[in-house]
């Protein structure tokens, strides 16, 4: 039987594939424990140390290697991601709610929204920079870059919410309406608690995509750099293991975010389930 050979071969291949996906990151993680300040960003590890982690936090004595210029960028990126998350999620929920009914031009609007995640950052970034330039407004991270972040993340929030509404049972809303509850109150008291797990996913998408956004921000933000721009700036000069240490730390941050999401998700799913049971009773 041929398939008896093919399956293990493909299994081994998949393991190698995962090695290909994770390899670079493992190497980066190992090298972040290189001795400093004289150890370079390559093998062999001269001596294991946490020097470069201390360096990221500014805990090492001054050396010829400048600290990473990340702190202001970090604050800006977090603020920007938070703003983007709120606006994208609100727009996403509103638009998906609108798509529950068929309206004229819904096809066009659908493609208009989805276009936002498809058009590469270079193009929208350039376009918005041109617009800002011509009407004479300054490009900053909280204005021009912010609107582009929403253009990018709103489609994700919209699609997540669309999927949620697709599986949503409208009979609970109908029940509320037929009892004379206003649509707004119905949304707040009935619909929203039921779709909340979806809202959380939309928020997670929007936050992480915005936090890591690079190409749009490059064109649309002015002199004040966000975190990814600050990181990109260090690429052109000689790299040191401190940027590897930073990479490990920022990954841990992302995982922490994912953990918070998982916890909130479990809680809200449990609540939605309880609510659904109440409705049934």
């Amino acid at each position, binding site marked *: 039987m041929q398939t008896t050979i093919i399956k293990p071969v493909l299994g081994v*291949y998949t393991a190698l594939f995962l090695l290909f996906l*994770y390899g670079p990151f493992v190497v*980066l993680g190992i090298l972040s424990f290189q001795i400093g300040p004289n150890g370079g960003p390559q093998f062999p590890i001269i001596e294991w140390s946490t020097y470069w982690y201390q360096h990221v936090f500014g805990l090492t004595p001054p050396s010829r290697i400048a600290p990473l210029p990340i702190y202001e960028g970090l604050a800006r990126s977090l603020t920007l991601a938070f703003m983007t998350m709120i606006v994208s999620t609100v727009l996403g929920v509103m638009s998906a709610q609108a798509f529950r009914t068929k*309206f004229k031009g819904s096809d066009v609007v659908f493609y208009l929204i989805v276009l936002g995640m498809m058009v590469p950052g270079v193009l*929208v970034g*350039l376009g918005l*920079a041109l617009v800002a330039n011509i009407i004479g407004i300054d490009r900053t991270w909280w204005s021009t870059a912010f609107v582009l972040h929403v253009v990018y993340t709103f489609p994700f929030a919209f699609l997540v919410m669309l999927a949620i509404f697709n599986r949503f049972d409208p009979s609970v809303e109908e029940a509320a309406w037929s009892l004379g509850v206003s649509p707004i109150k119905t949304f707040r008291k009935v619909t929203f608690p039921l779709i909340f797990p979806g809202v959380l996913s939309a928020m997670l998408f929007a936050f992480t995509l915005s936090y890591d956004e690079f190409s749009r921000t490059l064109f649309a933000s002015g002199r004040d750099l966000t975190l990814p721009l600050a990181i990109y700036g260090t690429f052109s000069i000689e790299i040191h293991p401190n940027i590897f240490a930073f990479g490990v730390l920022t990954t841990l941050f992302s995982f922490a975010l994912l953990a918070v999401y998982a916890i909130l998700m479990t809680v809200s799913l449990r609540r939605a389930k309880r609510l659904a049971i109440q409705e049934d009773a």
Partner: protein
Amino acid sequence: MTIATPAPDSSDSTPVGLVARPSRAAYWLIAPGAIWMTLFLVVPLGMMVYVSFWSQTTFKIEPILTTKSWVAFFSSDTYLSALWTTIRIWLLVLLSTFVVGYPTALFVGLFVKNKTLATALLVLCVIPFWTSFLIRVLAWRPMLGKEGAINIILQAFHITREPIEALLFTELSVIIGMTQIYCVFMVGPIAFMLGRIDPNVIEAARDLGASFWRIFRTIILPLSMPGVIVGGIFVSVMVLGEFATAAALSGRKVNMLGNIIVTQVGSLKWAFAAVVGVILTILMGLVVAGFLRIVDLKREL
């Protein structure tokens, strides 16, 4: 979705308020999002097309219409070679993401019968996306460098005697990096399509004595085509719009159209950057339209 069916036109004449309410509200709900996308996505892209015909002086652009920037693009070897580089890298990365990703998708989508294990494997593929894009790009430097991990391993196993210098700061490193970053977008859609194949079809073919290769060619591959197309569109759009990976892994030697835009904007050559932007848009439009011609996605999905 039962109450959502009536046509919006008739909503005013419908006697029951319950039905009319949602469809009129739909316009109010969709308006903010639609306006946002029009102002900040459609207008900028339109402006890019418009500005590509403006006159460029040393640091300024003026709304005097001219095709000078267009002529400059098509008469310059540097820019034409950037166009060619973009197309070449796109094709190579498309091919390599397909070749590298397909066997994994085949394993996850078709051979792993346990749904939990299949999901776990897909999640494992997605986890690297939780790290910053730039860090993922950067992680290839200590892998590919002259004293990098790959060269150390190759020499340790006596496969090569000298370190291979061509691994980093070449077009090859750009392609390796992009393959790793984007191949998951190929694996996901293909695995999804493969998972929907009715196992009875394959069983029947096997009972009739078809070899695995024949089953693959006549059943598995055609049925997974929509996944390949969706993955291909994802990868193409992202690779064509790339510049950061090319800059960081080639030491700014490999210039794609995206890199040209970045440098032109840096030197305030707005009209020229707009020309490159429009060319990139057209290229992308052609590629996506080409993909959609191969498979009718609306029918297949």
